[in-house]
């Protein structure tokens, strides 16, 4: 396989755009966690002494939602820079293809075209290095967010347990805990799928 075929595979704009759409979806979902966590805190406060445990968990959830927000911003910045670099690569790939066509049509042109082609490929190589670094950072950041989501899932389970002790507020607290669990699970499964796709 030509080294340029490897580059095509890694920097394909379609692949990056697909990952970008998945990440945007997760960012949209995660922005809801903050509201749910805030709601949980308010309900716990209203329930008073009966839901002290729930209040502790909901305050941890609020912290979790802040950390998730920071992690998601990082993920968004990384994918933005990957899209930009993949688009730059597409332009250089097209330039390369023009010079390759010239060479294939007229072999005698090789001596003039080859140095230009080498310069184009050198530029492609440096953008590709940048793209590889970005992919690596993206995978690391994805793992970090997944770990964070694991802690979010534990918190949502704790919230469900604490909701049981909420007396007459128990049903409301349980509903909030389920909401948190649902949102975190959705983020978790989307990111896991994305990690699998990126590993292919």
């Amino acid at each position, binding site marked *: 396989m030509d080294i340029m075929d490897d580059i095509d595979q890694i920097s394909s*704009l379609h692949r990056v755009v697909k990952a970008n*759409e998945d990440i*945007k979806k997760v960012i949209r979902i995660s922005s809801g966690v903050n509201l749910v966590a805030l709601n949980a805190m308010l309900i716990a406060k209203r329930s008073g002494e009966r839901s002290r445990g729930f209040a502790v968990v909901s305050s941890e959830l609020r912290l979790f939602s802040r950390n998730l927000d920071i992690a998601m911003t990082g993920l968004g910045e990384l994918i*933005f820079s990957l*899209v*930009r670099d993949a*688009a730059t690569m*597409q*332009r250089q790939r*097209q330039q390369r293809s023009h010079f390759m066509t010239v060479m294939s049509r007229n072999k005698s042109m090789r001596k003039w075209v080859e140095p230009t082609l080498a310069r184009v490929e050198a530029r492609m190589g440096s953008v590709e290095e940048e793209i590889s670094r970005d992919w690596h950072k993206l995978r690391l950041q994805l793992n970090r967010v997944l770990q964070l989501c694991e802690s979010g899932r534990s918190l949502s389970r704790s919230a469900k347990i604490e909701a049981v002790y909420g007396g007459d507020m128990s049903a409301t607290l349980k509903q909030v805990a389920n909401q948190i669990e649902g949102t975190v699970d959705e983020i978790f499964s989307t990111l896991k799928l994305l990690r699998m796709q990126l590993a292919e």
Partner: protein
Amino acid sequence: MKKLEFIYEDGAHKWAVVARDPEKPNHLIDTNEYLVLNGSEALLADPGGMEIFSAVFSAISAEIDPYTIRHLFASHQDPDVISSLALWLDFNPDLKCHLSWLWGSFVPHFGGTAETFVAIPDEGATISLGGLMLDAVPAHYLHSSGNFNLYDRKARILFSGDVGAALLPPEESGLYVENFDRHIRHARDFHRRWMGSNKAKLSWCERVSRLDIDMLCPQHGAIYRGEDVKRFINWFADLDVGSGIRD
């Protein structure tokens, strides 16, 4: 990097502009790219030059799925308008590019096949964007001899291409015109030199003054809103164009 900003929103019907690139090299003229969205379909008006493709593409992708772009609209044939065509087609070969019939065999030098282009006749045409009707309004000789604006009668927005353009200094590069008299100084020389025909200019002024326009959106410079739209049309009608060569 360029950023996408929504300038009109009514449910799934939206207009956005990709503008102001602080990282753009000084030797390139700054351009505004406009995106019209209607449900799951989008049209990109004057997609820009190939040098800024990555900036435009990444700005759009940060907000919307670029696969929703099904149409490109080129107001005319200039490189800052449409030289990125081949790159957009690399991404989505099914894109349709609407432009004046006059440039039908010139613009393909930037890329595309016979199936890519939808020729707009001199009198104009209607482009359907998921059921939303957009009008290609003739603006010939302003400045190109085959030139169109794009009018959205529902949003009351006119994408005016080079008409209304201004070359703004960095300290006055807001997205909207805030002080017409101050702003128009940066548009005067551009229009005197680039617009070649007083007759064509008056014909355009008469045509667009019959349209309901809330926003007049040029390819360079700032967007005119409300009363400034009328002010601009009157100012342009009075300006002697085709006269900008410096002695």
